[in-house]
């Protein structure tokens, strides 16, 4: 609690300073909401700077953070432009809002204070933060998670310093608790305060929102930020407060820093601003000024993450767009496979998405049955506010189709909820009564104890609140031991693995409760490579060797390319590539220069004489992928000898040679043989893992490959060192 309270106070103070500097004074809940959000954007950026220079010490954070509220008080000045609050709430609506907010707020607070065990939280949202705190700042994590923008996580960092793991979830909860005030304020501004109450509660009570907002995730925070952009724009447009474009831009940048998929709000901001400017005939100089006023704060917040990724990962938008920005850290094939996987969650067909997102739960989380009324949001188009809400909803909703987990609806949900509320409330005569019934039904159906009545089976939602664990009457370590399988294996790693040694861990990725380095199966190029080595002995098509001899008329050349001629949904892998003339192989020379059209960084693995190591293209096979050898002098050859795993036999390969300054395709024929797996293939795989710096394997019983390790430790060349909660720790001999 203390850590989160500290973060809240500091963010609020920073936001207040900003609005004082802008000479804008907001009112009521809107003021808390926008000051907190803009302050969060500033504090997050400041934390980025502190982490970059490795000054993340508790004392520094407390000293710097403690100064901010003092500054806010010291530099207070009379209000400049006082923003009007809009229409007032009637007592009935006020009571409905306050009672519901408090009731669920108490539930949410208890849940957030429970020890943190959320999967993504412990693996990277908090997992990486705990490592940053351990290192007093950023340290390079070679994985897609290490490259995500961590705008919200930068707020977790000071909370973690003061209150450890569950303080981070309470920081996330702050966004959930404040967003309804922003939505309520918006309802008042558009003259429909009842719609503000209904819309905010529709969002606030949604089961997936409650679950997500009470753990150390970032989706609800992102929703709060993107709605903040929208609210700032509305205040700017309705009151002609030019200064509000600054917080709008700041929050648009922060939305990128929170979650890449929220960046469409920046596009919306720009279009909105341009449209309003043109409609008012304010002229191009004003347009340029406004563009600058919004863009500069956005760059201030989003820019550091883009620059960091450009420097560390050679891809400013890492972990996306790796085809455009090739790098050694993440094979494009990982990105494309994840996209395919995430776009088909649970195998739910498109037509069933609305049902599963509201009631069914196969998308991991539901927004609640009342959202089956979502088509009523179309009634809101009678109002200009409704039309605008739906316009803002669309760009934020579209990324859901690239990752259709329930929680990926959250950033767009405030807009849908508000539009739905406007639609319902605007129904003549019946509207207000119907709206109250909808809110009450939503509250009843979303209460955890009652959800089982209408939605049996697993749902990703708040379980029954454990107040004893939240208040630490049940000690944290006892709770974690009893409720979470991955906790004890983490302690086992701390006890038995030396610092700095890498553990290959195909089924446990939590970094939050131990201090060792884990390598999984898909989060980086290195992880995928390790996983492929690990499963090679387990899969015959990978363990068998496919030998190609590609013959062609003798040619004299200084450069040769092995080129793909077909398409395949797999990557191209070459274990060894050799050149021959007649019966003699061309001896490899240190002077040869090798490269490839894709993943050139690992080309030496195809020339190392290692029986199992391989170069991979790291992307799916398309015609024209090449692996090039530059001999440095003219050489005569008539054959290429290619060793691959047997699963590669379906990719057609050809040869090109440099002749007279241009690449010439050689007419070739191929003869193939398959060599059965060598008896030593397991030890070879172990040795490849060791060459990658891996010294240990941590794997639970029942996981893929676990039985084979357990049945054949001697021929793997591994020794079981310990067992914890069904996880076995193997040492590579």
């Amino acid at each position, binding site marked *: 609690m203390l850590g989160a309270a500290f973060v809240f106070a500091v963010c609020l103070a920073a936001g207040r300073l900003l609005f004082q500097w802008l000479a804008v004074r907001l009112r009521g809940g809107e003021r808390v909401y926008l000051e907190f959000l803009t302050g969060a954007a500033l504090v997050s950026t400041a934390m980025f700077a502190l982490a970059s220079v490795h000054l993340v010490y508790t004392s520094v954070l407390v000293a710097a953070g403690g100064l901010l509220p003092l500054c806010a008080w010291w530099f207070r000045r009379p209000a400049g432009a006082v923003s009007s609050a809009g229409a007032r709430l009637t007592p009935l609506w006020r009571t409905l809002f306050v009672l519901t907010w408090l009731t669920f707020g108490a539930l949410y607070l208890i849940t957030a204070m429970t020890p943190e065990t959320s999967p993504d939280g412990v693996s990277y949202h908090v997992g990486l933060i705990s490592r940053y705190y351990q290192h007093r700042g950023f340290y390079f994590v070679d994985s897609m998670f290490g490259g995500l923008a961590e705008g919200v996580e930068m707020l977790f960092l000071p909370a973690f310093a003061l209150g450890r793991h569950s303080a981070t979830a309470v920081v996330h909860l702050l966004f959930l608790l404040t967003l309804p005030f922003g939505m309520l304020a918006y309802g008042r501004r558009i003259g429909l305060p009842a719609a503000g109450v209904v819309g905010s509660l529709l969002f606030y009570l949604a089961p997936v929102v409650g679950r997500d907002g009470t753990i150390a995730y970032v989706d609800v925070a992102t929703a709060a930020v993107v709605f903040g952009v929208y609210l700032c724009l509305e205040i700017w447009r309705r009151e002609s407060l030019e200064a509000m474009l600054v917080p709008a831009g700041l929050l648009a940048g922060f939305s990128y820093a929170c979650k890449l998929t929220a960046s469409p709000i920046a596009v919306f901001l720009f279009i909105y601003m341009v449209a309003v400017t043109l409609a008012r005939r304010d002229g191009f100089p004003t347009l340029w000024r406004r563009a600058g006023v919004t863009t500069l704060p956005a760059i201030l917040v989003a820019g550091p993450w883009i620059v960091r990724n450009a420097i560390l990962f050679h891809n400013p938008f890492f972990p996306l767009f790796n085809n455009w920005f090739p790098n050694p850290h993440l094979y494009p094939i990982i990105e494309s496979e994840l996209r395919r996987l995430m776009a088909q969650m649970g195998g739910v067909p498109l037509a069933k998405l609305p049902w599963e997102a509201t009631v069914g739960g196969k998308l991991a989380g539901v927004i609640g049955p009342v959202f089956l009324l979502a088509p009523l949001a179309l009634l809101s188009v009678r109002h200009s506010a409704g039309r605008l809400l739906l316009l803002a909803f669309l760009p934020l909703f579209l990324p859901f189709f690239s990752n259709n987990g329930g929680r990926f609806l959250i950033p767009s949900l405030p807009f849908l909820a508000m539009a739905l509320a406007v639609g319902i409330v605007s129904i003549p005569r019946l509207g207000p009564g119907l709206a109250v019934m909808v809110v009450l039904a939503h509250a009843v159906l979303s209460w955890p104890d009652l959800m089982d009545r209408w939605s049996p089976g697993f749902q990703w939602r708040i379980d029954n609140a454990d107040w004893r664990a939240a208040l630490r009457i049940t000690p944290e370590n006892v709770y974690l031991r009893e409720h979470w399988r991955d906790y004890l294996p983490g302690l086992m790693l701390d006890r038995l693995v030396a610092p700095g040694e890498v553990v290959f861990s195909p089924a446990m990725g939590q970094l939050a409760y131990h201090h060792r380095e884990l390598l999984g199966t898909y989060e980086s190029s290195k992880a995928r490579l390790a996983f492929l080595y690990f499963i090679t002995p387990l899969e015959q098509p990978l363990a068998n060797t496919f030998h190609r001899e590609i013959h062609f008329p003798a040619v004299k050349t200084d450069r040769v390319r092995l080129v793909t001629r077909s398409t395949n949904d797999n990557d191209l892998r070459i274990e060894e590539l050799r050149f021959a003339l007649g019966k003699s192989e061309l001896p490899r020379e240190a002077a040869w220069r090798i490269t490839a059209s894709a993943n050139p960084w690992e080309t030496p693995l195809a020339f*190392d004489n*290692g029986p199992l190591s391989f170069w991979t293209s790291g992307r799916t096979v398309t015609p024209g992928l090449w692996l090039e050898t*530059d001999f440095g002098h003219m050489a005569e050859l008539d054959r290429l000898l290619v060793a691959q795993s047997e699963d590669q036999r379906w990719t057609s390969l050809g040869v090109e040679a440099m002749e007279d300054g241009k690449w010439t395709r050689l007419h070739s024929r191929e003869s193939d043989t398959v060599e059965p797996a060598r008896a030593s293939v397991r030890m070879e795989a172990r040795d490849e893992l060791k060459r990658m710096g891996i010294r240990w394997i941590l794997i639970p019983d029942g996981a893929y490959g676990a039985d084979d390790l357990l049945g*054949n430790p001697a021929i793997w060349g591994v020794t079981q060192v310990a067992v914890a909660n069904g996880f076995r720790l193997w040492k590579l001999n």
Partner: protein
Amino acid sequence: MAAGMRLRLGLATTPLLLAGCAQQPVFSVPPQRTAQEFRVQDLFRAGAPTQPPGIRLVSGIRPTGIGLDWTWTTDHAALRLALDPQSNARWDLDARITCAGVVLDKTGPQHLTFVVNGETVGKATLDAARIWNLRFPVEPALLRAAGSGEGVLVEILIDRTLPDAGGPPFGVLLHEIGFTHELSGADQKHGVAQ
């Protein structure tokens, strides 16, 4: 498009273009790996956190100190290892032993005899203070003679040791001892060679 607009767009996109336009990386042929021998091991390792199942220290091997990978033997060390008696593998007895200078200086060269199930399989003379890696082939029939329950009895007999007042004498420093064999297709239990 106005020149000013082009300039602004150019400035805005330059960092992104620079990030994406790295030079084509080129590499040299790496050092060539040499052929490697892969051996299955069933070894007692001094100081290892866990030992292969079925290993039992019988006598003459002192407890290993914390953090050490060696332990003292007496003049007659004995342990049992569990090997599959039906295995057709050509096992070798492998031992990694240090001849301690403090002993060598007092006793002169030590003569070691390695015995498996009562039969001598090899002898070695340790005449220098260093680590000795020793390997002796063992007849499969000798291993099968062990039967199934007790495991294979391995003994080290040392002719010269350093007496210890009030305790057993100091022999050699034992790092590891047990059976190994080169991998062959018959060793596969699961997976590709089924």
